[in-house]
């Protein structure tokens, strides 16, 4: 087969120019800071609060998405009902819809005069321009990750095992808990991690609905943008590095989950 040297050379060159050198620049810029400066930036009240809001709400949203994603997958794969194929197809909309569009749409929907915001306001619940709004946007962009990672595994799950367990007298709940859930666990964890990682870094769909009040509803990516516009590059870079390191840890964890799943003979398709 010809062309290995040429294509590999081009691949590495282009990868370096577009991805590796720009990302390395971020770490080089950070290394210009002393450890004290770095520490001061990260422990400033506003930074800590932004990181807490981004990571905390992303974690909560990923938990909700884990449960809701599981229900949606189960319903789509195991049940038949009118409109099932359409509902299956629209799960991808949060992937396909530009984040700014999702942002203005969710804000219009949950604003106090919006279709959902008005009834919620009557109950005394304010969603738009509060941390709950951030949470809602993070649920929107995260749940397809759980659905699309678990779905192929649940489809491939052999019905015979369940039938065997049932014929041996296991109850439905036992079968779900002892047979189905263990096979799905790696995929569920992967979906959870992907939804979490996406929500932590999310910007477009969040900033419209968030309210963006410092220390209350200001997410870390927005703080990076604000620091950049104030020409406080060191601050922006330090926050970015912390977020990037966490993303890398998430990728690493996902890879471990997949290796673990492979040794157990369960396929996770990501």
């Amino acid at each position, binding site marked *: 087969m010809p062309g290995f040297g040429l294509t590999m050379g081009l691949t590495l060159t282009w990868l370096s120019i577009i*991805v590796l050198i720009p990302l390395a620049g971020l770490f080089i810029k950070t290394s210009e800071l002393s450890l004290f400066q770095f520490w001061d930036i990260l422990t400033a009240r506003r930074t800590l609060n932004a990181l807490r809001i981004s990571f905390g709400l992303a974690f909560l949203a990923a938990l909700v998405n884990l449960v809701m994603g599981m229900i949606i997958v189960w319903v789509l794969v195991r*049940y038949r009902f009118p409109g099932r194929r359409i509902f299956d197809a629209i*799960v991808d909309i949060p992937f396909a819809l*530009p984040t700014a569009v999702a942002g203005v*749409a969710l804000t219009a929907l949950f604003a106090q005069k919006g279709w959902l915001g008005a009834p919620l306001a009557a109950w005394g619940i304010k969603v738009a321009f509060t941390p709950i709004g951030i949470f809602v946007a993070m649920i929107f962009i995260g749940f397809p990750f759980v659905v*699309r990672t678990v779905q192929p595994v649940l*489809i491939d799950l052999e019905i015979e095992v369940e039938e065997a367990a049932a014929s041996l007298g296991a109850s439905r709940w036992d079968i779900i808990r002892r047979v189905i859930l263990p096979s799905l666990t790696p995929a569920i964890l992967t979906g959870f991690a992907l939804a979490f990682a996406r929500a932590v870094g999310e910007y477009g769909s969040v900033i419209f609905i968030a309210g963006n009040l410092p220390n209350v509803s200001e997410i870390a990516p927005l703080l990076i943008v604000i620091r*950049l516009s104030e020409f406080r*590059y060191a601050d922006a870079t330090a926050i970015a590095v912390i977020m990037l390191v966490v993303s890398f840890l998430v990728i690493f964890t996902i890879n471990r989950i997949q290796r673990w799943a492979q040794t157990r003979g369960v396929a996770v398709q990501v």
Partner: protein
Amino acid sequence: MVINRPKSTSAHEIRTEPFLVRWTLITIAILFLTIFVVLPLVVVFTEAFSRGVGAYFSALSDPEALSAIRLTLTVAAISVGLNLVFGVIAAWAIAKFEFRGKVFLITLIDLPFSVSPVISGLVFVLLFGAQGFFGTWLQSHGIQILFAVPGIVLATTFVTFPFVARELIPLMQEQGTQEEEAAISLGASGLRTFLRVTIPNIKWGILYGVLLCNARAMGEFGAVSVVSGHIRGETNTMPLLVEILYNEYQFVASFAIASLLAFLALVTLIVKTVLESHLEEGQPASDD
């Protein structure tokens, strides 16, 4: 990261949960999808047409809107083109040969998927901004990258970098090298083999990758927002214009642009479904 498309749903129909449980779960799923997916889509179009069709089209024919549409199309064409060429080349190197560190290389190619959009823009500010590594050099040579089209293209290319490659790598790995080796043993040149054997085998995969890459390129907001500079009529893409008009309380105009992007997303999903059926058909056929 992007999830593989699911295979066709199994025809098995098991109804082992009680009727009540089944329909409770179905109701929860439908309610959730309606609230989080259907309603946001409907609201975009309702708001866009809230002042009638005339206001909608006059918003879209505004010079600023037209310039944003033009810029978005230009940037997407360049970025998708670059990533298409890269994706095919990288997939050839990775799928057709065995070498150490392959898994690591694939991880590096996937990297942009796990970087926050804002950080994807920030890295180019650090390189090409006034205080950046190449800032002074660029300034003295009068080259403008940041707050201009080249910066927007770079950020978009970064964000959409993995789409084509990660679609083609598994597809080409599955197809193996037998057909190419046969063509070469019959005397075809490497390039001719690639054009006549490989390309026809991966054409649906290429289209699929380009489709997803294009959707993201046209819709990218965070990364482009950081490098664009928001110069009116010059460096605003469609998603950026949605934000600007929204912040100026020009809701009809903002949602009109948003509706074009939402329409693009819907078309993308429909074409994607069609391509998926082609990909599923195509795979067994390419084995013989």
